[in-house]
C-alpha cells in the first residue's frame, strides 16, 4: 500500500468513526431538545386539559418532526479534508494531514511533497483512532433520560385532573364548569328528594346525558335539546299543580262559608294542606259537639265543594262528597271516616305538590345547566357543529336558536303575531321576519321548525303540532304596532332598544301564575276556555270567511 493510500484509508476510517460518534451525539442532543416539547405540552395539559385528538395530533407531529430532523442531521458525509483538519487539531500535527491530503488530491511532481506525504503516512500509522476519537456516552443522553422520567412522572402526578397519557387517557371532549356541575348535582339531589316514580329515571338519564357529553358522544346542542326535554318533563306537572292549588283555593273558599270548617279551610286556602288535614281530623272528632245546623251547613258546603272538581282533585272532591253525604244522612260514623279520608287526601295532595315543587326546582337547575352549556357552546357556533348562530346573523336564525332552547309557543306564531294571553307571543320572538330572509306568514323559521313548537295558549309544547296556514286576518295588535312605529317620539323605543328588549331574558313564570285581580273562578274560566289546538284552524277559517263576507257587503 502506498503512502497515499495509507493516508486515505486512515482518513476514511476516521471519517466513519467520527460519523458514528456524531450520529450518536446528534441523536442524543436532538432528543434532548425534542423531549422538551412533549414535557412542556404535558405541563400545559395539566392546566388546559387537551383532548385525545389534540394530544395524538401533537405527538404525531412531534414524532414526525423529530424523525425528519434526526434523519436530516444523520445524512451527509464529512469531507476528508475536514477529517484531516480535525485529526491535525486533535493530534497536534500542525496541518500535516490536511496538507498531505491536499497534495494527494492535487498531485505535483516534487520530492518535497513526496517527503511530506511519507512523513504523514508514518505519522498516521502511529495515530490511534480509539484514542483520538473515543466513543463517549453523550451527556445529552442524561438530559433525555431526565426529561423522559419527568414526562412519565408528570403523567402519574396525583392530581384529580391529570390524564395519564401512558394509559391512553386524555381530557374528555367536554367538561362541565363548576357552576354547571353544581347545577347538575343540585338537580339530582332535588330529584332524589322528590318521591315521584320517574325521578330516578330522570336523574339517571341526566347523568348519562352529561357523561355522553363529556365523552364527546353527543354534541352540546344535542345535549341541550335533551336537557330541555328533561326540563319540560319535570316542569310538565307545574300546570297541574297550579290548577290543583287554584282548585284547592276554590274549595277552601266554599268550605270557609261553613262555620265548622272555617279552621280547616283557612290553611287549605293558603296551601298549608298538612295543617288543613289536621284540622279536618279535629272536625271529625268534634262532630258530636256540633249543632245540627252546623252539620247541615257543613254537609252543604262539602257537597258544593265537591262539584266540578279540577283535575287532580277528584279524589278529594269524592271524599268531600262522601263526607257531605254522610253528614246529610246524619251518619256520624261514616262522616268521621269521611273526614279522615279528606285528611288523607289532603296529605296526599300536599305530598304531590311538594314533589312537584322539588321537580320544578330541579327543572330550574337544569335550565341553569342548559344556560351554562349554551355559554360553553357559543364559541363552537362557527365550527359547523350546529351551534347557535352568531349575534350578527339574521333574526330568523336567532329565533330558530331560541326555538331550540325551548322558548316555544312562539316559534309557530304566524308572521310574528303576538298574542295577548300567550307567553309565546312575547314581542313576536320566533316568527318575526328576519332582516335578510323575511318569513312568509305561516312559515316557521328554518331552525325554529326543528323545535317542537307550541301554541299561543301556552299548551304543552310536547303535543302541539306546527302551525298551519297563516291567517289572512289583519290582527289588531300588529296594526297597533305599525301605528306606533309610524309615530316617532311619544315614548317609542328606538329599534336598538326593541332589539335589546328582545334579547332580554324571558320570564319562566307561567302566565297563569302571574298575580292577577281576577277571582279564582274568573281565572278558571280563562284557563278552561283555552282553544284546543285541534280547533284553531276551524276557528281561523270561520273568521276569515266572516271577514270575506263583510268585505263583500
Amino acid at each position, binding site marked *: 500500500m502506498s503512502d497515499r493510500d495509507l493516508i486515505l484509508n486512515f482518513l476514511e476510517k476516521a471519517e466513519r468513526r467520527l460519523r458514528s460518534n456524531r450520529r450518536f451525539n446528534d441523536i442524543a442532543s436532538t432528543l434532548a431538545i425534542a423531549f422538551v416539547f412533549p414535557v412542556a405540552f404535558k405541563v400545559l395539559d395539566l392546566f388546559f386539559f387537551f383532548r385525545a385528538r389534540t394530544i395524538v395530533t401533537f405527538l404525531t407531529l412531534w414524532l414526525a418532526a423529530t424523525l425528519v430532523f434526526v434523519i436530516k442531521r444523520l445524512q451527509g458525509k464529512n469531507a476528508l*479534508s*475536514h477529517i484531516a*483538519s480535525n485529526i491535525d487539531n486533535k493530534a497536534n500535527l*500542525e*496541518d*500535516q494531514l*490536511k*496538507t*498531505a491530503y*491536499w*497534495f494527494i488530491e*492535487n498531485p*505535483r511532481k*516534487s*520530492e*518535497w*511533497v*513526496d*517527503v*511530506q506525504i*511519507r*512523513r504523514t503516512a508514518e505519522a498516521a500509522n502511529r495515530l490511534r483512532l480509539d484514542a483520538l476519537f473515543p466513543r463517549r456516552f453523550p451527556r445529552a443522553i442524561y438530559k433525555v433520560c431526565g426529561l423522559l422520567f419527568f414526562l412519565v412522572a408528570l403523567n402519574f402526578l396525583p392530581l384529580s385532573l391529570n390524564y395519564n397519557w401512558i394509559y391512553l387517557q386524555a381530557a374528555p371532549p367536554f367538561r362541565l364548569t363548576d357552576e354547571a356541575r353544581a347545577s347538575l348535582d343540585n338537580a339530582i339531589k332535588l330529584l332524589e328528594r322528590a318521591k315521584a316514580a320517574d325521578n330516578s329515571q330522570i336523574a339517571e338519564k341526566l347523568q348519562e346525558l352529561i357523561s355522553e357529553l363529556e365523552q364527546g358522544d353527543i354534541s352540546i346542542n344535542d345535549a341541550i335539546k335533551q336537557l330541555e326535554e328533561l326540563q319540560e318533563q319535570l316542569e310538565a306537572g307545574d300546570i297541574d299543580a297550579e290548577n290543583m292549588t287554584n282548585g284547592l283555593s276554590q274549595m277552601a273558599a266554599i268550605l270557609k262559608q261553613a262555620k265548622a270548617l272555617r279552621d280547616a279551610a283557612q290553611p287549605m286556602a293558603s296551601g298549608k294542606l298538612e295543617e288543613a288535614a289536621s284540622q279536618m281530623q279535629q272536625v271529625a272528632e268534634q262532630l258530636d259537639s256540633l249543632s245540627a245546623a252546623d252539620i247541615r251547613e257543613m254537609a252543604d258546603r262539602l257537597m258544593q265543594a265537591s262539584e266540578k272538581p279540577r283535575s287532580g282533585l277528584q279524589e278529594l272532591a269524592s271524599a268531600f262528597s262522601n263526607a257531605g253525604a254522610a253528614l246529610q244522612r246524619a251518619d256520624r260514623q261514616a262522616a268521621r271516616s269521611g273526614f279522615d279520608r279528606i285528611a288523607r287526601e289532603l296529605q296526599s295532595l300536599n305530598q304531590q305538590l311538594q314533589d312537584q315543587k322539588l321537580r320544578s326546582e330541579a327543572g330550574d337547575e337544569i335550565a341553569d345547566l342548559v344556560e351554562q352549556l349554551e355559554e360553553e357552546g357559543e364559541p363552537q357556533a362557527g365550527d359547523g357543529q350546529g351551534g347557535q348562530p352568531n349575534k350578527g346573523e339574521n333574526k330568523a336564525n336567532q329565533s330558530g336558536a331560541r326555538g331550540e332552547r325551548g322558548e316555544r309557543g312562539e316559534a309557530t306564531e304566524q308572521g310574528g303575531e303576538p298574542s295577548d294571553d300567550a307567553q309565546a307571543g312575547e314581542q313576536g320572538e320566533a316568527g318575526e321576519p328576519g332582516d335578510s330572509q323575511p318569513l312568509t306568514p305561516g312559515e316557521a323559521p328554518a331552525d325554529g321548525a326543528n323545535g317542537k313548537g307550541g301554541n299561543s295558549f301556552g299548551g304543552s309544547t310536547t303535543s302541539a303540532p306546527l302551525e298551519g296556514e297563516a291567517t289572512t286576518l289583519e290582527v289588531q295588535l300588529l296594526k297597533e304596532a305599525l301605528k306606533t312605529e309610524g309615530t316617532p317620539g311619544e315614548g317609542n323605543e328606538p329599534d336598538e332598544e326593541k332589539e335589546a328588549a328582545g334579547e332580554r331574558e324571558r320570564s319562566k313564570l307561567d302566565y297563569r301564575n302571574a298575580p292577577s285581580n281576577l277571582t279564582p273562578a274568573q281565572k278558571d274560566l280563562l284557563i278552561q276556555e283555552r282553544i284546543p289546538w285541534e280547533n284553531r284552524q276551524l276557528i281561523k277559517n270561520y273568521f276569515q270567511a266572516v271577514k270575506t263576507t263583510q268585505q263583500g257587503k
Partner: protein
Amino acid sequence: MTAAIEQQVEGFQRLFTRVKQEVAKVIVGYDDVIECVIMALLANGHVLLEGVPGLGKTRLVSTLSDVVHLKFSRIQFTPDLMPADITGTNIVQENAHGEKFLQFQQGPIFANVVLADEINRATPKTQSALLEAMEEKTVSIGKQTYKLDPPFFVLATQNPLEMEGTYPLPEAQLDRFFMKLKVDYPTLASLHTILNRTTQSQEPEVQRVLDGPQILEMRKTVRSVPIARPVQEYAIRIMMATHPNTKFSHAQTNKYVRHGASPRSAQAMIVGGKIRALLHNRVYVSSEDIRSVAMGALRHRIILSFEGEAERVDPDMILKGILESIPEPS
C-alpha cells in the same frame, strides 16, 4: 532523493541554530528578534528594527555581520545625508597622462549587510536612495547601473520616541522591508546577563559560521518547501482582512485602516512560514507558521486612517483581532 532532502532540512536547521546561538552570545534576551532577523536574511528580505536607543539594535546587526562573514557597512542617517553619500558618486580622477576622467566611487550601500542606523533622521530623498537597492539589488548612478553583490541585506533602525527632526519613512520604503521588528526592553533576567557580559574584561567572541554561498544555498532550500493551497489561502485572507471596505475586511480594519497590506506581505508571510517550517523540521507550511510571522510581516504595511492615528491605535492590536477572527483552513 528523499534522504537528500532530509539532509538539506537538517543542515538548514543546524546552520540556522548555530547562527542564532552565536548572535545570542552577544545579544541577550532577544531570541525572537534574532530569529526573525536571520529569517529575513534567509528570505532575501530586509528588516526594520524599531526601538528606543540603547537596546542593542546596532550591536545586533554588527554581530550578525560578524557571524555570517559578510561585508558589513554602516550608514548613520542624518538630516544632511545625501543620496550620493549612500550610493556613491562619480568623482573626477586624473590618470598618469594628466587626463581627467570620472570614476565611480562606491558608497556604503555596496556591502552585503548594510546597517541604516536611525533611518528616519534622513530626508525622504535620501531614504529613497535605498529603494532601488533594496528591491532590485542594483544601484543606478547617472546612466550606469551597478549590481550589488548577493546576499544583500539591509537592517534599518529607527527610534519611535524622537519625532522632532525626523522624517517618517514613505509607504513605498516601508513596504520593501520584509519585517518590522519591535525591540522592547529586556527582562530582568536578561539584563543581569547583559550586565555580566558587558561589564567584564572579556567580552564574548563570536565565530563565523555562515558565508555568502551558504546563505544563498539556504535561500534555495527555503523556496523549495511546498505549501498547500488552503494554507496559502489562509495567508491571503489575513492579508485581505487588512484591506478596508472589502468583503474580507475586519471590523477594526474598516474603522482604523486607510490602506491595507500589499501582496508583498503575503509573500513575506509565506516565505517566513517556510523558514519556520524548516526550523521545526517540517517540509510543509502550516497555518501556525503563517500566524507566527504575520505580525512582523504586516504591522508596517498597515497605514492607519485619521481616526486610527487620532486614537493612537496600534496596528498590532488590529492584526491580533484579524488573526483571531480568521478561521484556520480546513
